[in-house]
C-alpha cells in the first residue's frame, strides 16, 4: 500500500510486482508506464501501461493444463526411448498446442532433438523455451542444450 504514496508511475510498477512476485516473471511489455511520446505529441490518451495479468499467472501453470499434457509427455518419452523420434515430436507438438507457453514442453522437445542427434534444433528449441520459463531448474536444463 505504501507504493501508492511514492507516485503514480511507481504505483504502476508496484502493481506489476505483486503478480510478478508469485509468478517470478518479468514481462517485456510490463515495464513502467511508457511516458508520453518524446517526439510527437499524441492527440489521444495513451492506453494504460501494460500489466498483463492473464487468468493463469505465467510461470505457474494451470493444474488442469498440466494434467492434460503430462500423459503426452510420458508417451513421448516412451516413443523416444524406443527411437521413434518422429512420433515423440508429434506427441510433444500436441502437448505444445495444449500448453503453448509451457517451458516444460519445450524442454522435452529440446531433449528429444538432442537424443535424435539434431543439436542445432535442440539448441534453437531450448532458446525459445527459455522465453517462457519462470526460473529455476527448468531454465537451467534448457540452458544446458544451448550451444
Amino acid at each position: 500500500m505504501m507504493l501508492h504514496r511514492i507516485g503514480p508511475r511507481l504505483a504502476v510498477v508496484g502493481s506489476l510486482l505483486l503478480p510478478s512476485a508469485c509468478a517470478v516473471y518479468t514481462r517485456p511489455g510490463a515495464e513502467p508506464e511508457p511516458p508520453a511520446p518524446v517526439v510527437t505529441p499524441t492527440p489521444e490518451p495513451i492506453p494504460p501501461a501494460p500489466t498483463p495479468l492473464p487468468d493463469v499467472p505465467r510461470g505457474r501453470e494451470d493444474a488442469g493444463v498440466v494434467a492434460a499434457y503430462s500423459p503426452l509427455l510420458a508417451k513421448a518419452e516412451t516413443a523416444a526411448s524406443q527411437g521413434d523420434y518422429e512420433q515423440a515430436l508429434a506427441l510433444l507438438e500436441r502437448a505444445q498446442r495444449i500448453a503453448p507457453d509451457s517451458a516444460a514442453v519445450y524442454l522435452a522437445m529440446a531433449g528429444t532433438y538432442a537424443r535424435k542427434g539434431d543439436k542445432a534444433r535442440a539448441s534453437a528449441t531450448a532458446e525459445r523455451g527459455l522465453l517462457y520459463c519462470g526460473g529455476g531448474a527448468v531454465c537451467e536444463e534448457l540452458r544446458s542444450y544451448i550451444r
Partner: protein
Amino acid sequence: MASIRNMLLKTSLAALVLAAVWVVYLDAKITSTFAEKMWELPAKVYARPLELFAGARLSADDLVYELELLGYRKVSTIRSPGHFSSYRNRVEVYTRGFEFPDERERSTRVLLEFSGQRVSTMAAGGQRLDLMRLDPLQIGGIYPRHGEDRVLVRLEDVPVTLLAGLKAVEDRAFDSHHGFSISGIARAALSNLRSGQVVAGGSTITQQLVKNYYLTPDRTLVRKVRELIMAVLLEFHYSKDQILESYVNEIYLGQEGPRAIHGFALGARHYFDTPLEQLGLQEQALLIGMVKGPSLYNPLRNPERALERRNVVLDVMAEQGVISAEHARIARAMPLGLNGRRQIRNSFPAFLDLVRRQLRAEYREEDLATQGLSIFTTFDPLLQRQLEASTARVLDQIDGAGKLETASVVTRLDTGEVAALIGGRRSRYAGFNRALDARRPAGSLLKPAVYLAALERPRDYTLASRLSDTPLRKELSNGQVWEPRNFDRQAHGAVPLFSALANSYNLATARLGLELGLDTLVDTLARLGVTEGVSAVPALTLGAGEYSPLAMATLYQSIGAGGYRLPLRSIRNVADAQGEILSRYLTEYDRTASLQATYLLQFALQEVVRAGSGKGVYRYLPGEFTVAGKTGTTNDGRDSWFAGFSGDLVAVSWIGRDDNGATGLTGASGALQVWADFMSRASRQPLEYRPPDGVELVTVDVASGQRTGDGCPNARMLPFITGSAPSQHTGCGQQAVPAGGIGDWFRRLFKGAN
C-alpha cells in the same frame, strides 16, 4: 504390277500392325488408368480437432458452434453419439469418437463446465477427464490428382429422372450401343445440315467421358478416331453403370473463379445449394442442359439462355417419356431458383487452396496417387468464424458500396500453423485468393526489417540511438531522383530509433536503411522468410516490391516468434486409408535472426501500438493486453496494411482494390480495424515474453540518448543488448533512487530471472 501390289500389301500390313499397336496402347492406357480414375477417392481434408481439457481457453459458445458445425444435434435428453445439450455454462456432449492416425479417440459422454472464456471442469461418468478431442470437421475433399474439390456421388443416389433425362438429351442409344452410335451421328449430321453449322457433336456419353478423361479439346480427325476407339474399348472393359457413374461425377459444369465445377453433385450444391438427391425436376433439367455448353448456359451469367435451354430439356424429357407432360408443364413454370449466395456451404475455399498448394509443393507424387488419403490440417473453424465476422463488420462500416477487397492471414505464434485465412471479401466464395496471390507493395510493413538489421549491430545501433529524420534526395542509377517524404510532410530532426519506427518516419527509416546497405536489407528479409518480390532499390527501405499477405505473415511470424524462421504450415500430417501416417510436418525452430535484437524490435513494435501510428488498436483491445504491430500504407492509400502479433496469434490484414485504385485509407483507418477487431475477440494471450539472456534494462534520457536516473526528464527504461547501453550519463538522478528502491528491485528481478 506385281511389285506395286507387293508394296501395297507391305504398306497395308505395316499400317495394320501400327494400328494394332496403337489400339493395344490405347487399351493398356484405359485398363491401367480408368479403374483408378473411376474409383479415385477424394482425399478428405480435416480441420484441427478441438482439444478439450480443464483450463482450455474456450467459451461455451465456441464449443456449441463447433458442435453445430460438426452436425451434432442439440437435444434435451442425450441418447446417442452426436447429441449434445447446453445450459448456461454447462455443455454435455456424447462425442462420436474418431480414428486419428496416432490414436483412436473413443466415443465418450462428457460434461464440461465453463467459467467465462475457459473450461473449468471436464468429467465423464462422474470421473475427472484430463484430455480428449472432438472429431475433426471435414472441410473439403481434394482429388490429389486433379487438385480439385469435388462431391462424389454413387449412381444409386442420383435421381432416376436425372439419369433418364441425361440419356434422352445426350445419348438416347446409351443402353444399347458399344461406345459409339451411328444413329446419334446421323441425327447430329442432320441437325447440323439443317442449321448450316455444327450444333451437335453426336458423341455418346462414353465418347464424352473419354474426351474428358484423356483427350484435348481440339477437333482433329485423329483425335476423333482415337476417341472412337477408346470409347469402344471402354465399353468392352466396363459396365454401363460404371461408365455412367464416372460420367456423372466427371462432367464439367462451369467455373467458379479458378475452381472448376465437376460432377452433378457439386453442380447441385453450387448452383442450387441443395443436395443432388433433393433437386426438383426443373433443377435437374437445368444441369442436364448445361452439359452442352457450361459457359453458354451458365444460369448465373446467362439466365435467359439457361432458362430457354432448361425448357428445351424438359420438353425432350416429356417427349421421350421420362416425365409426364403435366410434370414438364409445371416444371417449365418454375423460376431458375438459383442459390443466391453463390457459394458452397461450409466451404473454406481460400484455406483449401493453400492446402492444395502445399500438398503439391511438398508431397511426393506416389503418395498423392494413394487412394483415400486423410489430410489433417491446421485450420481452426472458430478463428475463421471470428476472422470472417471481423472482416465483414469493418468492411461494411468503411465501404458500404463494396468497392474494396481484403485479405487476412492468421497463424499461431508458437508453431507457425495457419489457423484462418480470408482471400477476399466474399470469404466463402472461391475466387482470386488475395491472401496468396495478391502482389502488393508492403509500405511500412517492411520497416521492421530495416530496424532489425540495425539492432543486430549493437555497437552501432540501440533503441536509444539518434536517427536523422531530415530531407533525403538520392539519385538513382537510371538518372531518376528518389525523394521520400514523411506522411505528415514534416521532417522531425534527430529522433530516437524506437520512436522513428513507432511513428513510421520515412526519412529516418530510409536514411537508416541506406546506411545499412540494400544488400543487408535483402539478406535480413531473406532470413525472416521473405525472398520473393523483393526489389533491391532504395525504396525497399519503405516497402517497395510485390508481396502477398501470406509473405507478410511469414515476416511477422519470424519476428513474433523471436527471430525463428517458421515455415507457415497448413498441414499437420497426411494418413492413408489404413490410418498410417505418410507424412508429418513438424514445427522446427531455426534461428535466423538475433534473439536479443528481435526482442528489442518487439519492444519498438509495442511502442507502435502504444504511442505510434498503430495506437488505434487500443480502441478495441483492453489497455493491459500487450500486442505488437505495424501499419502500412502505400502511395495514395492504394494499400492499407496492418500486421502484428499477440502472445498466441500472428495476423496480417490487407485492404485495397483489385484495380489498384486509391482507397482513401491508411493502414490505421483500414486494415488496423480488421486486425484489432479480430484480435480483441480471438486472442487469448497477451504478448509477455520473458526477456532473453543477454538483454538488460537501462533508463535513458530519450532526448539526448544518454543514461539517466529514474524519474529524470525524458527518462525512459529501454531494453539493451548487454553492453550496448550508452555509457555517458546526464548526471541527473545518479543518486536519486536509493539502493533498494523500486528501480533496483525491478532490475534485480530482471537479472535474477536471467
